[in-house]
């Protein structure tokens, strides 16, 4: 494992059980390393294992084989509770469908991430959430519930929530897929700017790699995922 890498996957496989002792292999990654502060775009067809790969790196899904290191920590050597805590502190996750909690306001959704991590003192949580939302242009929307926000605003709240604990690694699963082109462009611009300023390691799933500029490393799942490559050949 390279000490220079923010994320390293080695011999990682993921198969979902089908019953009767059989399994459906969906991912087989021999090696993947992401440099700290880099921006990497994953692309590939539906079902090529992009979301599964993000879930593995986030420690949400356990691999069937192999090892995943994030910030030099072997994720799946940790007991579940510590892995949850590690994720809260070190990984920001932006979902395609925002996944904001409907009962909470914009600022409360952001505070929620800090509450679970416990790294930001409680008295500072609301101020930090407000600052983050202001950086994403939502200072007038702090008390609004998700249903009172536009889709673009909801995704910006989700981005603020992912960044709330100052995680060194941010994962984003097609963050703009459910936005119209213009809003997607605005949201993406803000997202990338904040990540660049804070020197986050960014791993995104997107079909539009060009939107991330020449600085982004683009990985095609057909090449990274040997299962996908085998499937393509057959």
């Amino acid at each position, binding site marked *: 494992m390279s000490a220079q890498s923010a994320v390293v996957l080695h011999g990682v496989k993921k198969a979902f059980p089908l019953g009767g002792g059989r399994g459906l292999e969906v991912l087989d990654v021999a090696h993947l390393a992401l440099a700290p502060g880099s921006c990497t775009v994953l692309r590939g067809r539906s079902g090529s294992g992009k979301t599964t790969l993000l879930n593995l790196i*986030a420690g*949400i899904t356990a691999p069937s084989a192999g090892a995943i290191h994030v910030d030099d920590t072997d994720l799946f050597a940790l007991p579940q509770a510590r892995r949850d*805590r590690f994720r809260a*502190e070190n990984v920001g996750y932006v*979902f395609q469908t925002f*996944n904001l909690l409907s009962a909470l306001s914009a600022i*409360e959704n952001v505070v*929620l991430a800090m*509450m*679970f991590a416990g790294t930001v003192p409680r008295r500072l949580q609301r101020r930090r959430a407000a600052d983050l939302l202001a950086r994403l242009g939502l200072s007038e929307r702090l008390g609004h519930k998700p249903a009172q926000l536009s889709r673009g605003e909801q995704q910006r709240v989700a981005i603020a929530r992912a960044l709330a604990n100052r995680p060194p690694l941010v994962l984003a699963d097609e963050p703009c897929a459910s936005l119209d082109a213009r809003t997607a462009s605005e949201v993406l611009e803000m997202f990338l700017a904040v990540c660049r300023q804070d020197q986050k390691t960014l791993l995104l799933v997107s079909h539009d790699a060009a939107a991330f500029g020449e600085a982004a490393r683009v990985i095609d799942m057909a090449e990274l995922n040997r299962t996908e490559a085998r499937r393509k050949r057959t």
Partner: protein
Amino acid sequence: MTIFTLAIKYLRGRFVASTLTAVSIALGVSLVVASVLLARGIREGFIAGATDYNLVVGAKGSPTQLVLGVVFRMDLATPNIPYTVYEDLLRDPRVEAAVPIGVGDAYRGFRYVASNSAYFAAYPWRRKAFTLAAGRFFADNSPNEPSYEAVLGAEAARSTGLQIGDRFYEGEEMAEYPLAVVGILRPTGSADDRAIFFSLPSYWGMNEVARAMVVKPLTAVLVRPKRMSDLPSLHREINVTPDTQAVLPSGVLLTIFNMMAVAEDVLKMILVTVGVIVLLYVFVSMYSATIERRREIATMRALGARRASVLTIILAESAALATVGGLGGIVGGHVIAYLAGALLGSSGLVTNPLRFDVFEPAVLGGVIVLGTLAGLLPAVLAYRTEVAENLAPLS
């Protein structure tokens, strides 16, 4: 924000469902609290209202009817007995005190009770003493000179608004014999608070049949023997006569309590059924809420929430619902008991439904524990929510 405030926000986010759940808990608890308060109140009302006399002598018939009618004024009066029964008992060397009672009609629901000054006498063995809040006791006049003076029980005076000097009668046929208020009693916490007292001559004078009778009628005689050892012989001797019976009020009270115990057993079964239904409702409510927000639970887990945190949120929600419902139920139970107590009061039984009882914290604690347990399975469901599966984009 804490886990608990998050649970409260979730409850507020489902305001209608949360309110309905809390109300259903409150209704169930209200029924339990009201039932216990009323059962206790009725028992205490019977005990407080029980007479200090050891025998009630009246016409042959139902012993329960005799005691309920004469002591608690809750039933129709039994047939009359001749005044000579009272005179015989007064002469009996075994009798320390004998009090004649004539139970008549009522004025605006407040029973007429005729007696003499012995009824209000402060014997050392009496638990309650009659004292006047205003005026004086009626005169113990001779049979041929009815005074038509009345002394009102505290509740009878308060409800009718009658004051010293006022004259009143019930029904046009009684206009000729109006009663004049000469005294108002202080509250005694018994059926006497709802009675209107006057002399036996007035009682006879108001009744056309009684006026014509040579031997005047009575409803009953309250008897206190000098020695308790004389009680069995007195009881036996009176009961062998063809027209009168002697009843031990304590025995009737026991019969009433035994009948109440049967009713209470049935009530307990109903209350247990209500409790199970309420718990099922809480379970279904929490279960469906958990199913509905599996995606949000998965999101929290993806944000770093531990399984234990998710479990705690659901349990805190059900505990909060149970607490609110339980507290509401205790308040509601007292309100129901108060209203039902007012109805019982109109039938002569005085209860105290507003008094806080030591069983209520136990009820509240039990409701919180059971309500929280009703949320346990949904909480375990949340605990075991598969994160990746529930985070998949919606189609």
